[in-house]
């Protein structure tokens, strides 16, 4: 199968590679670029462990082809911290014990990041609906909700400062 050249920006860096059309974005990230933060938890697009941010939208990278990302601007969990400073959502998950085994965490973080960009002051119900595309087996979501609330508060304080 002939490969297609595709170029995109990932966490601010330009990337260009030749890929088979059938290469899933999740595999492109994990195998070609060694960005193993996003994970694979299912093959039916339910679990959300593969969630990344494409052109400002949360997307399940297991249900997206690398060739569809020509010119795209992609953010993964590896790109959340800036200059060694953790993002508000990362700080929130740590402070509120929003992770245990860590497998759902990258997808949760990238989704939570985008959720707060879309809705800076969500209610608990809006947070739960907002992360309903991300499954967790360890936390029961209760501390994840608190983590997102922590991050929302921090972002608002930072914005006001």
């Amino acid at each position: 199968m002939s490969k297609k050249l595709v170029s995109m920006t990932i966490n601010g860096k330009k990337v260009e590679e030749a890929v088979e059309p059938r290469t899933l974005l999740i595999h492109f990230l994990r195998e070609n670029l060694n960005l193993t933060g996003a994970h694979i938890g299912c093959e039916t697009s339910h679990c959300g462990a593969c969630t990344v941010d494409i052109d400002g939208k949360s997307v399940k990278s297991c249900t997206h082809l690398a060739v569809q990302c020509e010119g795209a601007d992609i953010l993964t969990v590896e790109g959340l911290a800036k200059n060694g400073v953790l993002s508000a959502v990362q700080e929130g998950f740590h402070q509120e014990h929003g992770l245990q085994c860590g497998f759902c965490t990258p997808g949760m973080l990238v989704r939570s990041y985008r959720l707060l960009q879309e809705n800076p002051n969500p209610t608990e119900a809006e947070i739960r609906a907002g992360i309903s595309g991300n499954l967790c087996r360890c936390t029961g979501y209760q501390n994840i909700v608190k983590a997102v609330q922590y991050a929302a508060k921090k972002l608002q304080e930072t914005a006001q400062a």
Partner: protein
Amino acid sequence: MNAPLKDREAALMGMGDSRLRKEDARFIQGKGNYVDDIKLPNMVYMDIVRSPLAHARIKKINKEEALKIPGVLAVLTAEDLKPLKLHWMPTLAGDVAAVLADEKVHFQMQEVAVVLAETRYAAADGKEAVQVEYEELPVVINPFDALKDDAPILREDLIEKMEGAHGKRHHPNDIFTWEAGDAAAADAAFVNAEVVVKEDLLYPRVHPCPLETCGCVASFDPIRGDLTTYITSQAPHVVRTVVSMLSGIPESKVRIISPDIGGGFGNKVGIYPGYVCAIVSSIVLGRPVKWIEDRIENLSSTAFARDYHMTGELAATKDGKIQGLRVNVLADHGAFDACADPSKFPAGMFHICSGSYDIPAAHCTVRGVYTNKAPGGVAYRCSFRVTEAVYLIERMVDVLAQKLNMDKSEIRKKNFIRKDQFPYKSAFGFEYDSGDYLTALDQVLDAVDYKGLRAEQAAKRADPNSKSLMGIGLVTFTEIVGAGPSKICDILGIGMFDSCEIRVDPTGSAIARMGTISQGQGHQTTYAQIIATELGIASDLIKVEEGDTDTAPYGLGTYGSRSTPVAGAAIAMAARKIHAKAKKIAASLLEVSENDLEWEVDRFKVRGNDDKFKTMKDISWAAYHQPPDGLEPGLEAVHYYDPPNFTFPFGIYLAVVDIDRATGETKVRRFYALDDCGTRINPMIIDGQIHGGLTEGFAVAMGQLLSFDAQGNIQGNSLMDYFLPTAVETPHWETDYTVTPSPHHPLGAKGVAESPHVGSIPTFTSAIVDAFAHTGVTHIDMPHTSFRIWKELKKHGLNLN
């Protein structure tokens, strides 16, 4: 140096501190190291060809088309494993299981062949191209049918062997018959009983379904003759011993590494054919081999949980005092008995089924049987078969309460083992270490205003137009965890002790290694907290490592809530050895006798003289700089802890539900969980474990099910159907606690992470049945989907449509 005591304690962040987790940094930055993250040079990929049929003979396997696909290197079948005698392997339960189907397949999705290729994608293409011809055989799905006289024989390999690992087999599809207790005494209790209740209870087949599936990277180095395997395993040392036994490679040349693991919940205890094939392939090819299964493969072929068909009976006085318990179970183990139990217990710790109650006479029988389903079962977030046992007794007590028109909390109080009866010897021979059930129950009933809830329920029942049925569920469970004393608990002959090695360095920090392996339970933090308090070294300075068999002392792994009870004890004991040596060093440095010293948080000080002291930091340096005469240099210890007994954490759970009479949907209005796990190491981590366990319990009770049609096709084996609740469905959890330390544990700690799963499941059933109780319904089997509940509503004319 002379900061106030409180500050010095706080600085340690030791036992009891809700300190934030040390392991978080890598996970929140996407730098976890899970098995599928591992890439070794020259690595090949393995995929598995699986049977579409539940019971069939293999007529022919054609590898030709697969081998033509670019990138495909080899296709292996049972024929290729036969010369190595690896086409079958021993299970943890004394049975044998096929590694690759040998002339016949026994369950749908069974492994038939493996494909090795240069890339993941080529391996997937190769898998599709392998052609297998089958001749169908009659299928056995219902375990009761398996024992009929005319049932098809499933295990042709065992026809000659009517003596199984656990005694006589009375039928070709029989595995074992196991019993505990005193049958005569139990029967006597029933003969003249004033009240007898009996109920059939199904604990359906479910699956632990951690978010990360199973897999490994096996790497045989042909030059060194070493085998290294990264593996999703909850018991890396056991894997090492088994791999050595199977492969003939000396254990010292086998290295098993469990890196970061994305949830275990019992799914990652067993040794699966994929692991064996990857290891064999690596040895044959001399290259690393990676195998990672899909979710559908995980749900369909790795160890299921439960599938117990139980009948419970209670004999009681007319005032509700229980006199006897009898239980009969038919256990469906699927095609091979791959149950992960201590070897002497084919039904695990099921005989904890007398629960929190003082029952004078009891007996249980469990019969295991083969069917055409995937092999197992495992303990899904519980100690071995304890979910089943607790479900049984808690349901039966409710049934008895209903028969006598007694309140569910009153009947429990009447039958509780009293605080002064501990240590308590149950009718099944377990010695419960400690408990105070009454205090805990009263605490819960007060917290939720139980009387008020019952009044509200009565009012709703009196209103025929009420749109919902209200139910209150109550469970007062005792768990048995911390397997276990090596006299009675072993895995393949290895006693179920655990271990810890601690090495303090000259500048006062430490590295510690244990024989357990965290899959999210936070050992890197909680274990450091134990050592911090024992040795006065800040937990931030203590590096905890698990999972690499080359460096960690031998342990039996993490499952069945055994880490804190067994490894936690080993940690305390190892630390106390260091503590004892440190005291000698301090005495020498201060030129006093050891009797003149007392320990205070982070230092030894001379009694009566606050200014004469040596901190652990001072002592660490001295140990390497100039140890006192007669003492070796260095400051380290190792301890292997063989627990004298199990531990018995307990809990009181109460749920309030409202059932929509038109749709059958159940809304969990409130769930109050009080847990007593003895000494609490990190309350924040405990609460996290409780939330998680309750959520998994909610999933099991309300929707999880792996079912089969008459042809043995598995149903519901993807996340489209297998119920993993999202944040929207998951209720809000309220947690509470009491502390009743374990008298035999060095820290008084009991273990907690599985209690919420064990205890919550019957709580949901209890609440839902309670909603129907006024119509005479005594039990409704799980899962409590809206569909099944609506059918129940309709049956009793309670549906609003």
